[in-house]
């Protein structure tokens, strides 16, 4: 039956004499997509452009359009090198490198280690695996609250170690302005390493077992198999994880505030908190928006090539 109808319909669709109803029907898909795309165009691209425009004005507590050229960026640039006393922007950049570096490296290392360990024909994997993953379901505010308590020298880890008898043990990073950022990294690693583990584990399970069998027959040790075959095959996943983690590190905001308790004195400043405080509490919206543009550009430099390559792979 379908074969009979087919040519007729095909003819109707191709006919140049379409009436209004048919033409409308052809446009329905685009009309359905249009509202979403319009929202994205306005709220993402339009707003980013708007922020870019504001970054060239001397907006204070409210937006204005007194253009002052690159002055806000020049300010950020000079602050980048103002180390004594450190400017907030300098602190934010140093912390970004410290936090971002530790967060990315430890998440990758722990994630890979857990994935490899879990991939050894483990009994009870179904029980263990969810335990590494559940922190991902938590809000960063909850994570921060938990770690702030855990690391509190008065009642937390330090106190517990003292109770064990090691009374000279000292661990007060969470209340030490110079060390706070490391506590943020610890909490972040705890929260996200399970995610990296899941990515690596999925990749490990996706490897063709024939290759591994061949390696085994050739007498390769488990270590050599991982070192020479499995890890190289996983390079794309490694790249994905690296990019996702870097982008998450740059966007970190809630975690800093909750682990440090409102980021006292700006000691754990990151570009994200810098932007927020300059825009909404210090009434320097021009500088705040310039820092937002810097963040956006950094993320775009990482994500655009990644998304481009991800989209290009498929026809």
């Amino acid at each position, binding site marked *: 039956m379908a074969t009979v109808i087919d040519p007729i319909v095909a003819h109707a669709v191709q006919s140049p004499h379409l009436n209004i109803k048919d033409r409308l029907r052809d446009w329905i898909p685009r009309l359905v997509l249009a509202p979403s795309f319009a929202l*994205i165009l306005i709220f993402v691209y339009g707003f980013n452009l708007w922020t870019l425009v504001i970054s060239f004005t001397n907006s204070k507590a409210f937006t204005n359009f007194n253009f002052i050229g690159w002055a806000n960026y020049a300010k950020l640039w000079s602050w980048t090198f103002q180390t004594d006393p450190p400017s907030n922007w300098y602190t934010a950049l140093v912390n970004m490198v410290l936090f971002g570096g530790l967060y990315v490296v430890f998440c990758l290392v722990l994630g890979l280690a857990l994935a490899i360990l879990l991939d050894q024909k*483990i009994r009870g994997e179904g029980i263990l695996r969810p335990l590494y993953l559940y922190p991902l379901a*938590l809000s960063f505010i909850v994570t921060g609250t938990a770690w702030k308590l855990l690391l509190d020298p008065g009642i937390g880890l330090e106190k517990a170690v003292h109770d064990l008898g090691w009374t000279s043990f000292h661990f007060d990073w969470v209340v030490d302005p110079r060390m706070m950022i490391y506590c943020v990294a610890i909490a972040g690693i705890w929260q996200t390493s399970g995610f990296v583990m899941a990515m690596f584990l999925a990749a490990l399970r996706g490897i063709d077992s024939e290759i591994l069998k061949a390696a085994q027959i050739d007498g390769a040790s488990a270590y050599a198999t991982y070192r020479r075959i499995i890890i190289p095959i996983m390079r794309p996943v490694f790249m994905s994880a690296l990019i996702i983690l870097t982008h998450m590190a740059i966007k970190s905001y809630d975690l800093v505030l909750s682990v440090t308790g409102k980021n006292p004195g700006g000691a754990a400043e990151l570009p994200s908190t810098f932007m927020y405080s300059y825009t909404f509490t210090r009434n320097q919206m021009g500088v705040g928006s310039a820092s937002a543009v810097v963040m956006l550009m950094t993320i775009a430099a990482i994500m*655009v090539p990644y998304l481009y390559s991800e*989209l290009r792979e498929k026809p």
Partner: protein
Amino acid sequence: MTVAADALMAAPPRKLTRHSMTTRAVIYGLLIVFAIVYLMPLVVMVMTSLKPLQEITGGNMFYLPHDLTFEPWKKAWGTACVGLTCAGIKGYVWNSVRMVIPAVLVSSLLGALNGYVLTKWRFPGHKLVFGMMLFACFIPFQSVLIPMATILGKLGGIGQTLIDATGYSFGFGDPTVNLVLVHVVYGLGFTTLFFRNYYETFPTELVRAAQIDGAGFFQIFRRILLPNSAPIFIVTVIYQFTNIWNDFLFGSTFAAGDSSPMTVALYNIVNTSTGVIEYNVNMAAAIIAAAPTLVVYVLAGRYFVRGLMAGAVKG
């Protein structure tokens, strides 16, 4: 990636080199140590929330509660002070619920329609449209905060005019409505990504056959795609629910005071500068804030992980 994620969850461990007993003992030992480290913050939170305050400040946080008490939970729920009002967090839980349900439903449904158009009704430039929507997932939200605040302020102005004219604001300027709008807009990229990748594998022949039989755009969606979309709907709803429930940046920027969502209220309870720090009440509030997403994780971990993976890597 969904296939790989399923392989991960199904866990058919591959046969690798046989390990000696000691190697296996080391592997299990490491896995169990890691599991304990990952579990510890949650366990400490729960135990702390069940202890009276002097047992926390005087005792060891890793000991089981000696005088078990549920008072902190009652206080966190009903009488704890958030800012200046002391009515507990129950109102804020309700704020979050009212925000999260419409935001999740609307963004998921729009994502389904977008994914349907972008796979089954392709038009020239569909890839660019998708790429632009995808990039929206990864922008740092700092770069849209200022314009968003301006626009939401304008909406509030319209609401005030409407109240003056008709006595009713029609939702304009309502903080919850604002947050729903924000979360729908910035969730669209991810929901579209999920449905697009899912429908990509859905046989296009079925859609074409239905078209030939005279079914229209919406009819095909409702009769053919929707009945087969249950898994991806679950994944998307869980992903959106987790993200929106856990959001802090938008909540703290656009919904201050009594209308703020749960995460913001928790942050304010924990970081209050007045009075004694009630660790037990803080932890009870944190667990209440974490409970909905944790319950979802426990009940539907498989779909939760799938969403995470799909959000990180294109399928």
